């Protein structure tokens, strides 16, 4: 059983790239970080879409990561449940909708999931993160390290203070 970190965002739109940037940092650390799950999958996409339900197959836990336009800083974390939420376009599903698609398509209970929303400020077509968003990313990376160590430390369910 694997642990999945599934981030979405566009690195061409400044702080919208927070999720993919976090994945990049995790990629660098994954082979020398004690306590992380042995079977760890790090996936970065532009948008969560219905086919990402397939990425949940065989997962014991999922961490969705996205940039937040508004909300708490430096980040907010909440547990996510499957919910077939209807939005304007099926090209961009919410984390809840991806979980719902998984349950409906595969007739299985979705793995435990969390959503890490990192606060961003600029979402214009610009290169690089803003200074403040970079600080938030540092904090989010520290939290993610704790989450991964908890996920790699034993059988689920595991509790994690946010």
């Amino acid at each position: 059983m694997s642990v999945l970190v599934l981030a979405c965002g566009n690195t061409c739109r400044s702080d919208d790239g927070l999720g993919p940037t976090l994945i990049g940092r995790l990629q660098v650390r994954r082979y020398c970080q004690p306590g992380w799950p042995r079977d760890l999958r790090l996936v970065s996409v532009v948008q969560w879409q219905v086919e990402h339900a397939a990425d949940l197959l065989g997962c014991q836990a999922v961490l969705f990561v996205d940039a937040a336009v508004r909300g708490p800083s430096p980040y907010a974390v909440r547990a996510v449940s499957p919910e077939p939420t209807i939005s304007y376009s099926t090209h961009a599903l919410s984390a809840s909708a991806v979980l719902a698609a998984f349950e409906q398509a595969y007739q299985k209970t979705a793995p435990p999931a969390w959503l890490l929303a990192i606060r961003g400020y600029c979402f214009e077509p610009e290169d690089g993160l803003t200074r403040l968003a970079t600080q938030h990313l540092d904090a989010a990376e520290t939290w993610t390290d704790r989450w991964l160590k908890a996920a790699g430390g034993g059988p689920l369910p595991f509790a994690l203070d946010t």
Partner: protein
Amino acid sequence: MTERSVDPALAGLHRVAIDPLTRVEGHGKVTLWLDDDRRVREARLHIVEFRGFERFIRGRPYWEAPVVVQRLCGICPVSHQLAASKALDPVAGAAAAPAAAVHWRRMLHAAQVLQSHALHFFHLSSPDLLFGFRAEAGRRHILAVAEAYPDVARQGIALRRFGQQVIEALSGKRIHGVLAVPGGINAAPSAETGRRLRDQALEMLPACRDAVALARRIYLEDPEQARFAHVPTTFLALTAPDGAFDLYDGRLNVMAADGRRLVEHWPAAEYGALIEERVAPWSYMKFPYLRAQGPVKGSYRVGPMARLNLCAYMPTTEAELARQQWLSEVADSAGEPAQALLATHWARMIELLHCAELLVAGLEETPRGPCRVQDDARQREGVGVIEAPRGTLIHHYQVDEEDLVSMANLIVSTTHNNQAMNDAVRAAADQVFDGSEVSEPLLNCIEVAVRAFDPCLSCATHALGRMPLQVSVIDATGRTLAEGGRGAPG
């Protein structure tokens, strides 16, 4: 929403506006004009967002074009990458891309078409096709399909995922990766990668066969589908020199609605002598037409139906058998092209099967030779034509002495279909709109007509059954006769 048209051709007609219809990676809208008998006399599909790629690519180094133009679309970026690279091969000094490069470009293209068609059928159109055009709006979305038809949802997910995995393996990323460059490709995949992907392609074949069978069943079981938004059209598509179905390369062909061949094996680089473009003041999308027929009679359709009608055969066994069955069961009589708009979904699945067969046959090959050549005399102009998932795609560039793009002309598939989509919207509205009540089924039927073309504005035409549409019926005095629609989300 009280407007009087200044177009003399529309004088005295009542205007019904559907705004916004959807996004076009942006937005579009539909307006209908009714006569005093409440019949639809004119329909217009307006594209209201300005794209501008042809302008801002100017002044950029030509080698950036295949990377930049991919950003035109998040659904079929590979098509733009390939068309731009083909166009710029001679500019880079490659009269023809080397065989190894062509092979892997073809594999990338097959994966692209497969995942795009899977997306459209399973995720965008299946809610209408499985639940009915008049199903409750709240059910017309992919999650409801997954709940009611989990096996169909699983197949759609698997096919889309597989196609994207091939794209990622060949070009580095699922979206906006790079394989094709002017002169060839940047690198060929390893033999091990090819074998792994080929094994996955084999596993996808049953799902492709099921998809063809499902699309066929849906079409044949519903008599309404044969005449829905029916407008006989001319078709245009590439075929190989021997008439074979070919998504990557070939020459342009045109077939009239009655099956006559109007144009055969026209050199793609000379598209300008075949096709002219006109503009309309009410849309940012141009209206291509066949020069010989003129702007009124010269409209045509591109895409899966055009390709299956125009080719002599498909060079993979199962798809060719499926195509012959499709022709015999859709065309009104032998020798005539298939015309039923909604049979396009079935045609799309036959192409999906063909692409899977191509990938099974080609992924394990390891063509020898260079990936890239620049040995020929460099040109200052190039045209690349390809059959994208939605239809014929044309990229045309001119480059100056400093290797900067000085001219770019792109005719994307959806643009070719502009008039055909307008005609289909009018026909759909004529069938379902009685001129009084603005109903949910009306709104969705218009969306169904547009969606059958799988236009690039499909990002919004498949909105989970509840596109924000506002429809008003206004008489010639400006009095609102009826209003209805769905509210727009924030």
